[in-house]
């Protein structure tokens, strides 16, 4: 399965992807997302699922069932937009609370064995070079912590540049 997380308005999304996407689960902003409250319930109360039961409570499970993760996000200060970051923060049930040491650094242990190919498309009119550098490093760091492989990171000046994007 392919998991597509985006922060575009519905109309914008329809314009970029006019045809239905095969075997793709789409996570978009319905203005109902709650922020992660750092309770660790997804590790010690309802393991592998977020305690907050809004429509974003099963992000860990969705990630466990995908082999490709595509993120389309406005670039904010060299990171994701608040909505995308919110979804990413709510995805930590995907990993296990225990630690492992990889390349000399501490990270969370895998909970699942699936392999995820990660593609990130950042957009924004005024993305600085410094922000691009930060964003590239961020996606690489995320790929280590979420056990993914990065296959593409791209930057677009505006949403219309994504029209015709083939996933």
């Amino acid at each position, binding site marked *: 399965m392919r998991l597509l997380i985006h922060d575009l308005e519905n109309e914008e999304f329809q314009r970029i992807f006019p045809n239905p996407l095969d075997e793709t689960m789409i996570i978009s902003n319905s203005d109902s997302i709650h922020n992660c409250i750092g309770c660790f319930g997804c*590790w*010690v109360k309802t393991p592998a699922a977020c305690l907050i039961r809004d429509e974003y409570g099963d992000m860990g499970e969705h990630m466990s069932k995908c082999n490709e993760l595509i993120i389309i996000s406005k670039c904010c200060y060299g990171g994701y937009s608040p909505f995308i*970051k919110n979804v990413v*923060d709510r995805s*930590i049930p995907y990993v296990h609370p225990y630690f492992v040491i990889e390349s000399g*650094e*501490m990270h969370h242990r895998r909970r699942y064995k699936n392999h995820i190919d990660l593609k990130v498309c950042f957009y924004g009119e005024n993305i600085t070079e410094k922000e691009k550098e*930060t964003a590239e490093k961020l996606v690489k760091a995320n790929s280590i912590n979420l056990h993914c492989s990065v296959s593409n990171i791209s930057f677009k000046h505006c949403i219309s540049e994504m029209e015709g994007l083939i996933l």
Partner: protein
Amino acid sequence: MKIALINGSPKPDNSASGCILEELKAYIESENMMISNYNFRKPQLNAEEIEKLTEEDVLIFAFPLYVDGIPSHLLYCLTQLEEAFIAVNKKDILVYTLVNCGFYEGHQNRLAIEMMENWCVKTGLKWGQGVGIGAGGMLQSLKNVPAGSGPKKNLGEVIRQLSDNIKNCGTGENTFVTPNFPRFAYKLAAEMGWRTSIKANGLRRKDLFLKK
């Protein structure tokens, strides 16, 4: 000098960010410092808070690292503040940031610190210094250990240096600190903590490994 201590943890109490700000406060408190405390727990700030923040001379953020970056609720607040600071066009406010993570190594906070620097560029504020703190999960349990001693030896020294910079309105290199405590012992203690927590919730140790 008007200083804002901004706790960016979503936790109402017992946060590592709160412990860090308390320790910093002890170093910077004096007669000519007007310190205000803010808690950014929700993804929205009210007009009164925003107005008050634009009148500060120094903003000191402390927050936990969430998936290599800034927690989303704080990010929502920062986008609100970006608009507000651009509107008032104040360029002399200094920003210092302390980020703590559950991982042992303080440098794993570096990207969240970079994002705060990028935020300063976008808002027109002046970057002071960033501090990345490892093993944040341990800080609450070390609350009664005096700053600068035992496992908090390195952290105490870094906070003291940061407080000197703040008092002098100075800038400094970003600094990363790991506790004076072995990594393997921290890892074991953390894992034991998760087992105790899950059992306290009426589940079994093996439930930590559940899959959906």
